[in-house]
């Protein structure tokens, strides 16, 4: 366990003016970027990572976490005001948020979204801070065989739960693993699939792959789908009634059970790799509606609907860091990008992190606590300002993002070769999106690929090449059995939906 001195030292590192400035900047950027449909905090994190090179690890990671947290708040703004979610997880917020806006209660809805977001986020941060250290101790007892089984479990869950098709999910995972094979073989350091390009000896650069698939591919798609309109107009209107411009304490308190339910759902789903905030938001919404005495009011401007979705999708952010910090397994694309940021600063996420970098981790926890307060404060004062700023035309926003991607990848990954890789993966990302293969699975698999291969090699060595000896590792066997069960349940669910004509 981490000793008290380390915890206090970490927290004191976090609560400095320097770190505070970076967290503020991160939260501001996250809220702003998430409020622009088509950009989103994931893209912002990917673009921002290269620009954090010159910083110390704590302010760099605190800034990126601030972007994540700000993003959970900002995505609700366009969802409520123009029924266009800024982020996928805000799609559920639009169900009741936009009807509220049409009733002249836009500010009430956006403020409730803000309060619910912060509440859910704080809950999951408390869980993260409480369970991650003990979980890391447990994880340290896992050997290569258990790690291998855990990765198989992660791939099974991710492939099956993201997207409509298990087969497409499996293909996306396989393609991601294949991309990870490019570069030096981890055991022998012999070059693989580099085709004479020694820039690829260290493998494909993650910033290039991530930015290409997440940012450039999405931007180009949106550019191509434009119908000749170059505006992104978001208007805030209200009927002048002060009660519609704020959230009273009574209204907030009336949503307490809803927010708690959403926070629990978000935390549980966020701690499981691959499920993500969108599923958490919709699950929380459906369970709140089912538990409501007036379910018919949902979808027509019920504040409980907004509270349910926002508390859940924000709770995922903190919980995503549980598998990241304890096992080194990203629970989402944002977490995978955060891992790359850790590694850029010379830190290897995983169970050893608490032993070797305990002070940094508790510094990060301190920064997360700060970010929650700042999210609330900046959200309150920045709401009307974001709406003005994000009224800039899409043409300007998209070309700015493209230029930032080119420069960012060039800085992060060593030159224009990496930018070319980014462009190639952008094309791949477009094709995958068009034919409904999940990019999220691809990126997570790409990131886990080298570790997966090392775990296979180490397990093979440990078992002297006889894989039947895996039966001597009960935890690994249990994880593999659970993986098979998960796949079976997913297949059964899929077959049921096919028979019902739902797909």
């Amino acid at each position, binding site marked *: 366990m981490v000793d008290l001195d380390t915890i206090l030292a970490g927290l004191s590192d976090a609560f400095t003016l320097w770190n505070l400035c970076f967290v503020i900047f991160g939260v501001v950027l996250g809220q702003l970027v998430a409020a622009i449909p088509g950009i989103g905090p994931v893209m912002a994190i990917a673009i921002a990572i290269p620009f954090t090179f*010159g910083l110390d690890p704590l302010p760099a990671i605190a800034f990126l976490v601030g972007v994540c947290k700000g993003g959970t708040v900002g995505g609700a703004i366009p969802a409520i005001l123009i029924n266009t979610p800024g982020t996928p997880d805000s799609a559920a917020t639009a169900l009741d948020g936009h009807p509220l806006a049409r009733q002249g209660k836009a500010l009430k809805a956006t403020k409730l979204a803000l309060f619910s977001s912060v509440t859910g986020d704080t809950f999951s941060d408390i869980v993260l801070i409480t369970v991650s250290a003990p979980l890391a101790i447990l994880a340290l007892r896992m050997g290569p065989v258990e790690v291998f089984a855990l990765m198989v479990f992660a791939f099974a869950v991710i492939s099956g739960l993201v997207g409509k098709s298990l087969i497409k999910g499996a293909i996306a995972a396989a393609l991601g693993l*294949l991309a990870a*094979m490019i570069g030096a073989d981890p055991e022998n350091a012999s070059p693989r*699939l580099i085709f004479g390009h020694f820039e690829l000896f260290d493998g494909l650069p993650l910033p290039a792959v991530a930015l290409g698939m997440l940012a450039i591919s999405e931007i*180009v798609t949106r550019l191509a789908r434009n119908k000749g309109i*170059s505006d992104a107009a978001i208007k805030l209107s209200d009927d002048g009634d002060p009660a519609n411009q704020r959230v009273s304490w009574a209204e907030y308190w009336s949503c307490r059970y809803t927010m708690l339910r959403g926070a629990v759902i978000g935390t549980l789903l966020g701690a499981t790799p691959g499920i993500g905030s969108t599923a958490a938001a919709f699950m929380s919404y459906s369970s709140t509606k089912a538990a409501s005495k007036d379910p018919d009011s949902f979808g027509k401007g019920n504040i409980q609907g907004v509270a349910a979705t926002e508390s859940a999708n924000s709770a995922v952010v903190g919980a995503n860091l549980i598998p990241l910090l304890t096992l080194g397994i990203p629970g989402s694309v944002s977490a995978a990008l955060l891992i790359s940021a850790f590694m850029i600063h010379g830190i290897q996420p995983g169970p050893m992190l608490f032993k070797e970098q305990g002070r940094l981790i508790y510094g990060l926890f301190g920064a997360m606590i700060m970010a929650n307060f700042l999210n609330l404060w900046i959200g309150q004062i920045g709401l009307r300002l974001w709406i003005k700023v994000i009224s800039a035309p899409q043409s300007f926003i*998209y*070309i700015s993002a493209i230029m930032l991607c080119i420069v960012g990848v060039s800085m992060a990954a060593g030159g224009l070769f990496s930018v070319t890789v980014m*462009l190639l993966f952008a094309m791949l990302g477009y094709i995958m999106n068009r034919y409904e293969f999940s990019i999220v699975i691809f990126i997570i698999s790409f990131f886990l690929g080298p570790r997966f*291969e090392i775990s296979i090699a180490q397990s093979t060595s440990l078992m002297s090449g006889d894989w039947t000896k895996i039966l001597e590792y009960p935890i690994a066997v249990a994880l593999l059995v659970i993986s098979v069960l998960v796949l079976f349940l997913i297949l059964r669910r899929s077959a049921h939906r096919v028979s019902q004509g739902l797909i």
Partner: protein
Amino acid sequence: MILETDRIAGLIIATLGLVLLFVVFPFAIEDMDDGSIKPDTLPNAIAAFLVVCGILLAIKRGEQTKRDSRELMLVLLYFAIIAAGLFAISHFGFLIVSPFLALAIMLIFGERRPIWLALGCVGMPAFIWFLVIQVLERSLP
């Protein structure tokens, strides 16, 4: 016979797997006997898995993806412009090429207002120059 999109995708994936297994990997991966597993073990397994999944995708009942050739042509055009821009950047540098790249994309997108064109073509590159060169003290491509 109109083939469903998933069927075509499945066949392509299966073919890709076979090409990787029998053509690419023998050429592009060295054969080494040291170590617990060979360098081509996992790549071969992935390629075989792709073949199986591709066949399964091809034979299962799938969906027809809506085809929008206008969108596809525009996507190709934007990618071509960005690729041309990268080629030009490699010869002339980011600061010289980026205004033209921005102008091309914004005009094709439909932007005509001088103020936003100026901000995109001049303002944003200037901001990036300031951020990268002055603040971060790094170099631009």
